[in-house]
């Protein structure tokens, strides 16, 4: 038996670890186009820029110790689903009994924004390049105030850099968090000296001897040494598309991680999975690990649906932003705590049920919500706002009343 895992990120590493933990004793081969073994991506926009090392997903000796073959610097270029083989860049075909696609994302690029002084951030190599050039740079312009943009801004400010962010929306992370919480982040970044040009985006760029000159849609120009393009990412679906596997916004999989092709699974950032009845593609680290465990279980004779709540965090300056679940309407949130003091939890409520919480500097609230999410409970907005009852206690009570 040979299981082939295509992709060199934590999703593959978690699947490999799950297989061995469950006693799978066949071959496990990981195909990774990057030159280094799977590593943690979250620190790349945070601590890594400040000088920490790349954090491996597993200890370097783990792969040999667990008889997991890593083929680094290798891409899968085609799939033969009938013949059950994967074609590799080296030209050879690798047979499989089961195939796992964890091909991840690549940064979205803006036409004309490429080459020297222009950075994207996805891989450790990208982060090394950015870190090296940041050392000699003073002025960084970031295009896009998403997670990457906001986290790099935070890291660059800590390095003493002058940072400007252009964001077409009215506030940072507006699409993920809504206008109100986005407004809080706007204040946080501005309070740290970041210039946020909300509602403005860069249309063109010229190169000078000293650096770059950018021109915005409003006709403003700004000079800088470096640009980071942080305008989202695209799922790497091409391999699946070419093989005729069903795709949409990502590779389509069911609750068990199965694609439309027999014995072919997909997980991680590239997978658009049915989750509590809704198809969703999640670009978060925790989800990739959890899906890895589920797929490993399903590859070893179990039938385990992936039902874990979707959770993410973002560390910016000394603030911890966390969210669990999926909000129905980001403009209709119930706030517990103080938005002004930048310490609150904002709940999405649908017919008395919490479907998400977004919290700033209240990690305990997120933990408490995670316990009741996707389980029967009924709670009012008034009760959630009332801080005289600890949230953990409140949610325990409302869950018990329903069950």
């Amino acid at each position, binding site marked *: 038996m040979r299981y082939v895992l295509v992709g060199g990120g934590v999703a593959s590493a978690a699947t490999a670890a799950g297989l061995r933990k469950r006693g799978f004793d066949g071959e496990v081969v990981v195909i990774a186009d990057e030159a280094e073994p799977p590593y943690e991506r979250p620190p790349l926009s945070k601590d890594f820029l400040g000088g920490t090392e790349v954090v491996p997903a597993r*200890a370097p000796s783990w792969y040999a110790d667990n008889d997991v073959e890593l083929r680094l610097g290798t891409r899968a270029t085609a799939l033969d689903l009938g013949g059950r083989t994967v074609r590799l860049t080296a030209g050879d075909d690798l047979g499989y009994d089961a195939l796992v696609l964890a091909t991840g994302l690549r940064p979205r690029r803006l036409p004309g924004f490429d080459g020297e002084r222009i950075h994207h951030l996805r891989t450790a190599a990208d982060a090394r390049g950015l870190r090296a050039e940041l050392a000699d740079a003073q002025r960084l312009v970031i295009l896009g105030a998403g997670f990457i943009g906001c986290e790099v801004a935070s890291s660059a400010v800590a390095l003493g850099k002058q940072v400007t962010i252009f964001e077409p929306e009215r506030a940072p992370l507006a699409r993920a968090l809504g206008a109100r919480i986005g407004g809080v982040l706007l204040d946080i970044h501005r309070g740290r000296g970041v210039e946020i040009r909300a509602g403005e985006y860069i249309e063109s760029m010229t190169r000078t001897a000293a650096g770059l000159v950018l021109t915005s849609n409003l006709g403003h120009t700004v000079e800088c040494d470096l640009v980071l393009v942080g305008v989202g990412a695209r799922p790497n679906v091409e391999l699946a598309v070419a093989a005729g596997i069903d795709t949409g916004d990502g590779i389509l999989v069911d609750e068990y991680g199965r694609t439309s092709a027999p014995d072919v699974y997909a997980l991680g950032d590239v997978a658009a999975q049915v989750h509590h009845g809704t198809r969703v593609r999640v670009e978060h680290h925790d989800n990739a690990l959890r899906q890895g*465990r589920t797929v490993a279980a399903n590859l070893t004779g179990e039938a385990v649906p992936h039902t874990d709540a979707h959770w993410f*965090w973002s560390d910016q300056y000394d603030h911890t932003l966390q969210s669990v679940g999926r909000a129905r309407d980001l403009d209709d949130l119930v706030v517990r705590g103080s938005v002004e003091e930048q310490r609150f939890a904002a709940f999405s409520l649908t017919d008395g049920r919490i479907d998400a919480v977004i919290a700033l500097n209240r*990690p*305990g609230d997120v*933990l408490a919500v995670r316990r009741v999410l996707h389980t029967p409970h009924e709670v009012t907005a008034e009760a959630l706002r009332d801080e005289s009852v600890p949230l953990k206690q409140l949610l325990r009570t409302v869950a018990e009343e329903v069950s």
Partner: protein
Amino acid sequence: MSRAMTGRWQQAMELDELWEGEMTGVTVGAEKVLLVNVDGEIRAYRNRCPHQQWELSEGDLDGGEITCARHLWVFDARSGSGVNPDNCRLTDFPCRVTDGVIEVDVT
């Protein structure tokens, strides 16, 4: 990473104050210690998540698992070994109960 026992027991807290299924952070000597009562068994760990040194006492204990509030790393409360991710573990301290008092050796 179990430490060699040196026999320098220090009183940490009354057993009565740590209910089954509860955990709490205490200071023993110069060390921040997490005391955990898993179904009547007491465990003592360094009160720091191995990920980013966040205090584990701010997280929660549920179903025999400790979850760090910061990035939701999960540990087995009895063994201290990582559950998610599974390639790490908590630093444990020897502990015992003497005359209703939890004692920890942090040396």
